[in-house]
């Protein structure tokens, strides 16, 4: 017969004895199939109770040899492959690659095309940020609603992309020296409509989320990334700016026509998950501003530089590096051309989300295992880009 525990026998922990009881650490492998790892990413966590004491990211489950394939084909041939790097934002990937090639070959892009590029990549940015916030909250347990709202907006933008480029996700829209097809006046009107409606969506989004007590409790002071570490670890994009690093390639390099557009770079001061969330909201608002200006100022002109021939396109020997501010951070292409110059001799992508993962362990240490997923969500990774 089982004796009921007497008063003295019951296990009680006297105050102050925490930490005296030795427990074994537990190794948990999160992923690669896990609903909140955003694809096939794996984390090897060592837990003490529920606290993370070590964490090693494991990647490569989506290593698709993008770089090697690109080295086997002509310069233009890898344009559709860049769509599949960060598959939420094909437009800005296109731009990064086109920009790098234009830098190497010294191509000047007509103004009209530059504006089209700005419009497309800023639309991509708001698309990405709203989806990422949705995914992040999905990880938090806000099952469905924010993600569905984000996807509803996304569909509107994707309809425009489809009308312009012919494909919803894999747009393959930019060409060296411009873009593939011009936007008609109808498309521009659709874009204006999207832009004018988007702030309302953002207000709705913010009313639900910003200042929501549950969110504040789960996100504030979680996963803090100090500014020095952020710079030292080459963190870029919204994640770096949330930590107070005022660095935006759009402002520094002033590529495209960003030098002419008026926008601010929001900067956080704590560097926790909440800052990373809020920076994205603010960036969307800035993107709306950029879009309004770009849609208003867009000049007439050719949509592609007429002197660039797409067949038999060659680049003189040498190397070069071009970068843009993609929604996830600094996306760069390092290209080497050799004799012949018909195809890249070396083609390297500097993927922002891969490098932003460097500090994942530092941010997670000391937090509970449930916080790991939102810290990962706040980094905003896309596995196509992490593993390439």
């Amino acid at each position: 017969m089982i004796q009921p525990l007497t008063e003295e026998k019951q296990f009680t922990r006297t105050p102050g004895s925490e930490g005296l009881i030795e427990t074994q650490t537990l190794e948990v492998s999160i992923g690669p199939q896990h609903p909140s790892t955003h694809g096939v990413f794996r984390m090897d966590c060592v837990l003490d109770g529920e606290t993370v004491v070590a964490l090693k990211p494991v990647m490569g489950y989506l290593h698709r040899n993008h770089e090697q394939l690109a080295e086997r084909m002509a310069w233009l041939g890898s344009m559709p492959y860049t769509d599949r790097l960060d598959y939420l934002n094909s437009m800005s990937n296109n731009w990064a690659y086109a920009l790098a090639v234009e830098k190497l070959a010294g191509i000047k892009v007509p103004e009209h095309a530059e504006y089209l590029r700005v419009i497309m990549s800023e639309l991509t940015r708001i698309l990405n940020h709203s989806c990422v916030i949705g995914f992040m909250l999905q990880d938090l347990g806000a099952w469905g609603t924010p993600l569905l709202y984000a996807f509803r907006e996304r569909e509107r933008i994707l309809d425009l992309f489809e009308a312009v480029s012919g494909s919803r996700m894999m747009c393959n829209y930019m060409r060296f020296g411009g873009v593939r097809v011009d936007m008609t006046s109808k498309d521009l009107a659709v874009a204006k409509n999207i832009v004018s409606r988007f702030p309302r969506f953002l207000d709705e989004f913010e009313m639900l989320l910003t200042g929501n007590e549950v969110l504040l409790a789960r996100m504030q002071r979680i996963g803090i990334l100090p500014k020095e570490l952020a710079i030292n670890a080459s963190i870029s994009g919204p994640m770096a700016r949330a930590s107070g690093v005022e660095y935006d390639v759009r402002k520094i390099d002033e590529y495209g026509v960003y030098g002419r557009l008026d926008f601010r770079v929001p900067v956080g001061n704590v560097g926790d998950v909440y800052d990373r969330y809020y920076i994205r909201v603010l960036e969307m608002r800035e993107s709306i501003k950029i879009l309004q200006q770009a849609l208003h100022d867009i000049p007439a002109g050719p949509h592609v530089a007429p002197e660039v021939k797409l067949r038999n396109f060659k680049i003189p020997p040498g190397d070069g590096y071009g970068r843009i501010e993609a929604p996830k951070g600094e996306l760069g292409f390092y290209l080497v051309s050799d004799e012949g110059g018909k195809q890249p001799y070396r083609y390297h992508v500097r993927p922002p989300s891969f490098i932003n993962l460097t500090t994942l362990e530092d941010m997670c240490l000391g937090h509970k295992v449930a916080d790991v997923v939102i810290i990962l969500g706040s980094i905003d990774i896309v596995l196509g880009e992490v593993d390439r």
Partner: protein
Amino acid sequence: MAVDEGLRSELQKQGIFVLPFEQLYNWGRKSSIWPLQFGLACCAIEMIASAAARYDLARFGAEVFRATPRQADLMIVAGTVTKKMAPLVVRLYNQMPEPKYCIAMGACAISGGPFKDGYNVLKGIDRYIPVDVHIPGCPPRPEALIHAIMTLQRKIANQHLETENRLRWYDKNAETEFPIPSYGDHDLQPPANCEVWQPPRSYRDVTLDEVKKA
């Protein structure tokens, strides 16, 4: 067993449905397919989009994405299967309870797609596990995924519980686990499971007459 068609439709008008048990059973199965929540690459985003409000996979009873293979009926292989990932995909499929189905979504899952020439890309998931429906496209539109689910539903509706071609898992010695490949020095070992996959045949070197004769 056989009910007169005329009688059956007469009864139906009165709100009485007379069905073989098999049909009822299959109707239940096909209307509640629970897919595994498991995305590999770009196609997974379209999979999410088709579950979202606009395309609303829920209309077909397939919106309950389960995060664990042990509760899922359907694995949608949405994206590029790399060699590093392939053993895990096979393991996930093995962990799913019977009856289980597999949809290969996108060019990559079918054959490696645009990345076929890569050293780390598996040239089609059907090298290791049987695939019920293939969806071409890169990425397939959400409508295509919905079509695939409907195709699968048709397939389920026509499956038999008894007779010769009854469902696989009704056999006592039915194979429900597929061998998991292991990581080798250069490639997966073995590179394909020949029980479920055969390379396509070449009929180039024989003439029609020869075939007829043989």
